């Protein structure tokens, strides 16, 4: 593998890892702060992609679709938390698993009713449709850099929100000791709503951003969900920083595994997970 190829594969790893992070961050936040195991998280990714498809058709522009879609995702997340999840955050994990597993089927059926079972495509916006040539044979698609940009911006925003703001302080307090936080006047109900909506929005925006390069198809949420859980387990449950590092790690292992060891590429990520758990049973960054 020459240097240019290596560089592009590195970019591929980072891009894949960043999208995984968007999903894993929401998953780990919702678990870490509300204590809810959310198996339907992959469905939010799928719904985001279909929403991008529908809104791009309506507005004729992906940028508008993502902007409006993000607002709709926020509203959807708040509504879902208010209607369902708030009644489950103190229940047994088995109840939560059953609830969210049921939601997967409901969202799949909704998708089938609204958009059918065919595969749909979303066009890459014109200025981003090009590739950047790196050597005379190798180039990198501009749109994938755009995805990296969106993910990095959101990751930075998330970091600033949690580490630097008053709301972030309350979120951290609610995570480490919810009873004490409530006694000191933190509205944990509200915090839960916000965190849940944030997680849903991150997943749906990831789906929207990926729609043009991944196509939009039934069951697209399920394969990505498994990778998310792997990322969360490696990173340490509840840790956003851990999710970031481990998402990039999983991206690297998966990408270079596919190229260098194609025979066992499917197993490599799980071997990484097993190795990490042997060394650190609670993940790399257990809080």
């Amino acid at each position, binding site marked *: 593998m020459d240097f240019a*190829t290596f560089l592009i594969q590195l970019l591929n790893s980072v891009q*894949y890892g960043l999208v995984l992070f968007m999903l894993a961050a929401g998953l780990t936040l919702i678990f870490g702060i509300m204590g809810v195991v959310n198996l339907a998280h992959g469905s939010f990714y799928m719904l985001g992609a279909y929403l991008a498809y529908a809104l791009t058709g309506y507005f004729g522009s992906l940028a508008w679709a993502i902007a409006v879609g993000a607002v709709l995702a926020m509203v959807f997340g708040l509504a879902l938390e208010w209607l369902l999840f708030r009644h489950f955050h103190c229940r047994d994990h088995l109840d939560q698993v059953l609830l969210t597993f049921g939601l997967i089927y409901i969202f799949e059926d909704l998708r089938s009713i609204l958009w059918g*079972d065919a*595969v749909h495509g979303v066009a890459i916006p014109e200025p981003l449709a090009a590739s950047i040539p790196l050597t005379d044979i190798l180039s990198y698609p501009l749109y994938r850099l755009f995805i990296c940009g969106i993910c990095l911006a959101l990751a930075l925003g998330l970091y600033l929100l949690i580490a630097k703001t008053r709301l972030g302080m309350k979120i951290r307090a609610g995570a480490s000791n919810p009873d004490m936080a409530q006694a000191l006047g933190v509205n944990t109900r509200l915090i839960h709503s916000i965190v849940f909506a944030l997680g849903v929005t991150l997943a749906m925006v990831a789906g929207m951003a990926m729609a043009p390069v991944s196509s939009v198809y039934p069951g697209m949420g399920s394969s990505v969900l498994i990778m998310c859980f792997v990322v969360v387990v490696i990173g340490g449950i509840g840790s956003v920083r851990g999710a970031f590092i481990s998402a990039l790690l999983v991206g690297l292992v998966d990408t270079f595994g*596919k190229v260098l060891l*194609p025979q066992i590429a499917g197993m490599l990520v799980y071997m990484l997970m097993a190795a990490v758990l042997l060394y650190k049973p609670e993940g790399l960054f257990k809080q």
Partner: protein
Amino acid sequence: MSTRRIVLSRSAAIVGAAATGWLLPATAGAQSAKLRVGLMLPYTGTYAQLGVAVENGVRMAIDQQGGKLGGREIEWFKVDDESEPSKAVENASKLVQRDKVQVLIGTVHSGVQMGIQKVARETGVLSLIPNAGAHAATRALCAPNVFRTSFTNAQITLALGPAMVARGHKKAVWITWKYAAGEEAFEGFKQSYPAAGGSIIKELGLPFPNVEFQALLTEIAALQPDAVACFFAGGGAAKFIRDYAAAGLKDKIALYGSGFLTEGVLDAAGPAADGIITTMHYSDSLDTPRNKQFRMEYAKAFRSQPDVYAMQGYDTGLLLVHGANAVQGDMEAKPALYRALESAVIDSPRGRWTMSRAHNPVQDIYLRRVENMENKVIGVAAKAQADSGAGCRMG
């Protein structure tokens, strides 16, 4: 007194027997009842549209013959197999044991087909395969009562190798999902491409149904082959086509594939699919009177355009009509029925085809190029292509 009682009871027995049909000639009894046909197809999930297309095709072929099989009315039994292999044996058994179907038509998914194959071999029910391309059904696990009207996965790619070399592409990378259908498609390509003078410089694969192709596309760009050959289908196929173009490979390295790459995904793939060349036993654009007539009648009956799956369902119907007519609706006359099915020449929208010894179509494979979101036929890649039928021992 006693004799009168005997006469009475005997006549009662005769009347009773007559009422239940015991004393009628066996064939007359069989023919007065309806012929029981089972459809085991996916009606929900990813393959739902394929299941509906197959059923439409079957019904259309039979309706064109007056809606009867060998002069008998039909009673239909339907089961949604959900493309779920773990329920396959149970679903097929339900149709055969409970509903007592005499013909079992199914299915799309190869894994489910293996369940049907097990039931077909155990019960001897006539089993017609309208899509699934799994090799075993007409190779090691072939059976006298199992007939396929579609293709085997290798049959399609056997025609791909020579076509690529003939177009001057002698150095190729093969890429597919690492699962049964992908491996079987590769078997055909691995056999035909080097035999025609080409060399496979690398074999790339990823787990099914993983669709993150970017790393592999970078690898292809670095390897610089003359062409890429692949097997993908459905949602993953559309994504592969789009990613291939987005990675800047579309105009530099020719893309070939088993025809499923471009079936039903051209709208989703858009202009990225232009110029892709595939081999397949059918094309919507096949310019024959038979195909045009089929397409017109299908569109009229179902208000939608037929695809390869509808065509295969239609051929399944044609084959069944042919067999039932040959035995005048007596589906229990098995040796005669199987002889008729084995010797059938089906005048299909895809062109005439016959049954191989292992009960798989011997058919022309077409070379097709995507132009303006349509698979245009640009030639015949292989005349009367047969599957090897390796390991098949009937009996």
